[in-house]
């Protein structure tokens, strides 16, 4: 139990640092902003109480906001993500339910399951974030393009890091 909590805190620190120190300083062609830190919310334990999940998501977003001077935007996007997560997990539940202490990851539930799970969550987050940032409909399509491209890059990074931080012999086929 304690090891689990330490793992979660470590993952939080590592992902926030990567986001703030590296990814916030990188720009691909003006349209693409990867937000790898959402993986932290994706990988919270399945059995985490719903309300606690919302609060954790809120503070994760708030910390990113403090570093990138976008007060409230990331927090709002993360809260949206936290709100849809329990319902989406229920829709995707395997036939015999989730194991009591499992993390939703490629290792535990396979590549196909994970990509379906992650893509909807990341899309919801980016959709909320980019439209809150622009806050007007006159640039609807160019914003839409940014949402789609950034979602693809964020997903790619999330999948890559799933494989990077898992030992090969532990991975299920």
């Amino acid at each position, binding site marked *: 139990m304690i090891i689990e909590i330490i793992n979660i805190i470590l993952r939080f620190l590592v992902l926030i640092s990567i986001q703030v120190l590296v990814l916030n300083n990188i*720009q691909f062609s003006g349209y693409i902003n990867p937000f790898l830190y959402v993986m932290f919310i994706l990988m919270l334990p399945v059995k985490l109480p719903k*309300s606690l999940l919302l609060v954790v998501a809120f503070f994760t977003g708030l910390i990113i906001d403090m570093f990138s001077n976008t*007060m*409230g935007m990331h927090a*709002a996007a993360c809260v949206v993500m936290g709100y849809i997560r329990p319902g989406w997990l229920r829709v995707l539940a395997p036939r015999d339910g989730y194991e009591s202490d499992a993390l939703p990851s490629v290792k535990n539930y396979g590549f196909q399951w994970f990509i379906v799970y992650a893509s909807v969550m990341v899309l919801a987050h980016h959709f909320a974030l980019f439209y809150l940032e622009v806050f007007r409909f006159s640039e609807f399509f160019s914003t839409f393009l940014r949402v789609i491209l950034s979602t693809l890059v964020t997903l790619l990074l999330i999948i890559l890091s799933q494989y990077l931080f898992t030992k090969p012999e532990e991975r299920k086929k």
Partner: protein
Amino acid sequence: MRLLFLLLWRNNFTLLFLALLSFCFYLMVQNSYFQKASVLNASNAVIARTMQGVNYVREYINLKASNEQLARENANLQNRLKESLYSGLHARDTVEDTLHLQQYTYFTARIINNSVNRRNNYLTLDIGSLQGIKPEMGVITSQGIVGIVKQVSPHFCTVMSFLHKDTRISAKFKKNEFFGSLVWDGEDPRYATLKEIDKTVPVKKGDTIVTTSFSSIYPSGLMLGVVTDSEVESGSNFHHIKVKLSVSFQNLSYVYLINHLLKNEQRSLEEAGTKDDN
């Protein structure tokens, strides 16, 4: 009453969601409408110091480019020196020019955080209210304008970049003084759009765009950019002019802040004038 509580209890997840979401909206609105240094932003000391650490690395990498820029700037200043001596001889003959009042003073500062990849971009500088920085000061480099100071803490300040959806800069053609406003359309940090130029005005590729004297923030005649493309949309009375910005926002490291000493005088006079109209 019991039924109401039961209803609230059953939907506590959605209610918490709505509460957190409205708090986020409150933060966003407060941050964009009130120009006060709140505890929760990048001028916060801890966060600013982290950014400063990141910036040491970036600065070292950009050292060569910075040196070149400084050398160019020195050359530029030396040129001006000669020019000012020359015009100084002239000034002696005219009676009106004998009174010189300092209108602008300049501060220099280092950028410790910068972004170009969002729709609304901000910079953080390592200078603050202890050095005399106030909100709404203009920020420039030797190549052109960068933005406007937004929030100030004792040692740091945040700057609303030109690359922001709410920034509009009053701009004119250097050759014929026709003016419009320069805005960023959010796509490429190297280009901006000049609006409100009547279609009868002749526009050529390569025309220079500079600031006007209308603003109480920037001095007039600062370089903004060069026209790269212009067209008149059918049915419109205005040109759609694409401008290549003279400042490259991707590799800024040192900037100047402008203190307009007569700003309050100009503002209060203008406000008194509009008050009479109402």
